[in-house]
């Protein structure tokens, strides 16, 4: 029966080897393709999601990284919050602080060769303001009274009231960036889509495969320094581990972003010595918001006890492996108006216990949880269940605060439910991070005062809340730089003293790139792309 076993085996091996040779041949062909691409100076990067419809005036599912490659702002945000001219070469602000007049660069053209001028700036503003409610999160949008094309290269915007962060908000990646005339739909309403992605930026979209890749080539009409590489290919790779494997196989030149690869993978790639790795300046502060409307957390002594009651340095190092840095300030010092020293609330278990005793939370004999008037000291900490940092940190806090007699219940929620609980201020303790540059510090102080975000609500039991709110309003309306600095210092110092925010660590962006890639610099604006200065060695 089946005497041809040997023959079958030989045929099987032949087929297998032919197939494998075929594979190798194909791969060699691919490699030589990659080599020729290198000669053309191509940088291939990964991104977790499809770049989206490349519309400068909409949000999800459009990706900031791709929008920032094609579209540019009037004003650019640089290190330390410095605002520098970009598409506007200069600007003036009227005495009353309500009129902004921008002189536009005259050497700027869109990628299709058409001129960038005040008319197209106005047209973009009109499209944005047509859907004002979609952009109301951006403070100045709510105050725009009118926009005018003063002359071909002068654009004027008038606000209904003074709002100092206007220029800073004009530097954000969306929605205030400029689409060329050819991209507008017939009715001018870009919220419904754009015809083509025509921008003034250094790159233009040259090839696009939905959910697979997007290819950007140099804009031949770019007014600034030309990019050093000819092409940027963004490959859509949703899985972090696959990204790392593709990078190791040299299918990628750069992995860049926030949380785009696991901390273990970053450390492993760094330790291998075969690649370049880089960490950015702090982009945001990871912190806990304590809900002061909770009876237990309303007492400042309790809040201070929680600050002192865990080893922050050990937790940050242990969980993030050095990828994040221990934070003492609510806002990192690299943001405008935030560069001041605070007295760290260091790890001190005895001090924590003393604060709790002072607050009336005593440890009954034979029990491990403190009580006050028969009520147990029990709090709930919400965390996002898919977040690889929040969960271990929550578990650490549960353990460490347990040692001072605090029962911490930790609840993992999906992101939507988590945000919903935050907005409704239905939490005791919540993992939160500020918005980073170019949104802060004004967005941060705004949410401490404005209702609807959950933060102001959670601070409402602070004795000086009304005063704080007044200071926030004054800071946002102030046209006096020194007064504004004074107000920021006062607001942030009060919040630090009140200990209702528990700073944990400064979050940083990561970048891993091949040795032949050079010129990598993290952009100061959290949402900008880092591709303009990239080059690759011959």
């Amino acid at each position, binding site marked *: *029966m*089946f005497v041809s076993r040997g023959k079958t085996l030989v045929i099987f091996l032949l087929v297998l080897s032919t197939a*494998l040779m075929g*594979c*190798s041949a*194909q*791969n060699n062909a*691919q490699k030589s393709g990659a080599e020729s691409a290198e000669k053309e100076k191509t940088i291939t990067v990964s991104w977790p*999601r499809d770049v989206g*419809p490349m519309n400068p005036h*909409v*949000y*999800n*599912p459009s990706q900031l990284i791709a929008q920032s490659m094609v579209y540019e702002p009037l004003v650019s945000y640089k290190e330390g919050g410095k605002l520098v001219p970009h598409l506007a070469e200069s600007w003036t602000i009227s005495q009353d602080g309500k009129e902004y007049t921008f002189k536009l660069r005259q050497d700027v053209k869109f990628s299709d060769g058409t001129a960038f001028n005040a008319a197209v700036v106005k047209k973009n503003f009109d499209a944005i303001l047509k859907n004002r*409610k*979609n952009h*109301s*999160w951006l403070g100045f949008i709510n105050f725009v009274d009118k926009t005018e094309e003063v002359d071909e290269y002068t654009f004027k915007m008038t606000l209904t009231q003074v709002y100092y962060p206007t220029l800073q908000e004009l530097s954000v990646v969306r929605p205030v960036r400029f689409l060329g005339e050819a991209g507008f739909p017939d009715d001018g309403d870009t919220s*419904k*889509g754009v015809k083509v992605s025509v921008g003034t930026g250094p790159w233009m979209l040259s090839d696009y*495969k*939905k*959910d*697979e*890749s997007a290819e950007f080539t140099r804009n031949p009409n770019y007014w600034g320094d030309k990019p050093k590489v000819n092409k940027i290919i963004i*490959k*859509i*790779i*949703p*899985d972090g*581990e*696959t990204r790392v*494997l*593709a990078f*190791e*196989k040299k*299918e990628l030149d750069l992995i860049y972003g926030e949380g785009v690869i696991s901390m273990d993978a970053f450390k492993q790639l760094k330790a291998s010595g075969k690649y370049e790795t880089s960490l950015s300046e702090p982009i945001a502060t990871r912190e806990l918001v304590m809900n002061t409307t909770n009876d237990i957390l309303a007492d400042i002594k309790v809040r201070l006890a929680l600050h002192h009651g865990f080893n922050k340095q050990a937790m940050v190092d242990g969980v993030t492996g050095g990828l994040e840095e221990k934070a003492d300030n609510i806002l990192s010092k690299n943001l405008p108006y935030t560069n001041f020293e605070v007295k760290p609330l260091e790890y001190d278990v005895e001090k924590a216990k003393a604060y709790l005793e002072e607050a009336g939370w005593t440890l009954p004999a034979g029990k491990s949880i403190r009580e006050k008037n028969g009520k147990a000291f029990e709090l709930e900490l919400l965390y996002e269940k898919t977040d690889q940092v929040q969960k271990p940190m929550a578990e650490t806090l549960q353990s460490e605060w347990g040692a001072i007699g605090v029962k911490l219940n930790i609840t993992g929620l*999906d*992101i*939507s*439910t988590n*945000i*919903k609980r935050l*907005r409704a201020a239905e939490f005791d303790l919540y993992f939160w991070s500020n918005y980073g540059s170019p949104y802060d510090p004004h967005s941060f102080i705004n949410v401490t005062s404005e209702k*609807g975000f959950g933060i102001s609500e959670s601070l409402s039991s602070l004795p000086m809340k009304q005063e704080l709110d007044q200071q926030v309003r004054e800071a946002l309306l102030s046209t006096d730089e020194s007064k504004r600095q004074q107000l920021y210092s006062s607001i942030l110092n009060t919040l630090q003293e009140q200990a209702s925010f528990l700073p944990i660590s400064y979050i940083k962006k990561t970048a891993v790139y091949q040795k032949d890639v050079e010129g990598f610099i993290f952009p100061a604006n959290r949402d900008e792309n880092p591709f303009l200065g990239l080059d690759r060695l011959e």
Partner: protein
Amino acid sequence: MISYIGKRLLAIIPIFIFATLLSFIMINLSPVDPAEAYLTAANIRLTEEVLAEVRHEFGLDQPLYVQYVQSLIKMCRFDFGTSYVTKEPVWQEVAHRLPATLQLSFSSLFLVILISVPIGFLSAVYKNSVFDHFSRLLAFLGASIPQFWLGYLLIFFLSVKLDLFPVQGRGTWLHLVLPSFTLALGLIAVYTRLLRTSILEQMQEPYVLYARTRGIKEKIIMGKHILKIAISPMITGLGMNMGKLFAGTIIVEEVFSWPGFGRYFIEAIFNRDIPVIQCYVFLVACIFIVCNLIVDLLQMVIDPRISRKGSISP
């Protein structure tokens, strides 16, 4: 036969209603309001006024039964509405991604048949041989390795270390090999053992002894008589698993960056994009139903006694 098909087609209606109703209930059991999820994803500031406007736009302000009936009527017309996130018609979005998912599912099915039939057959013929032990080991591995882990292992060894296949993406047939095998291995494990057992059972049947006494060649007995009958449970299983194979692409598509419907569905869940979720449930239900029907018809063709007696024992 025609009346049988007619009955089966009629049975689709309650199954379909049950599947869509169940998914509708589950979506609405979630504490997250889709309008809120949409506004959060779109970065639009939440106010009661905006929320009410969006809820009205999505039809979420209507009673639940009205929402369900309306969505059901639309589904029957193949109108799945517009995605809350992309603002594009769902069917258009799905039609763009469906070919990739179907390609992956069918290539996996092809691999399942290509690998499990010869292995199952040979391991029955050479029972308790080295080959049989090897097939048992393969079955254990296939049944116990999680799909995502297998995917990573294959990428690491065959792609990164041996440089035989690309790590991710879609394009050439080489891109198809690893994801298809990852998706197929679990089923290969099952069907190899199923076919082996089935063949061994058939080998004990009197008709085999009778055939041998008639002097029919062993090859013909095994290939023409035994395999034909023994493969029947495998076909039933494959038909039932076709829907599972389609739904199972979600993990594989994620690991191999395969631009299919599964990945889109995952994003839709996170965004509470109800029209997309409903469309996915509808499609998976359809695939299950249609595949089961096809399998039953195939069974009837292979063994006409099923339609006559309702039994497949020889």
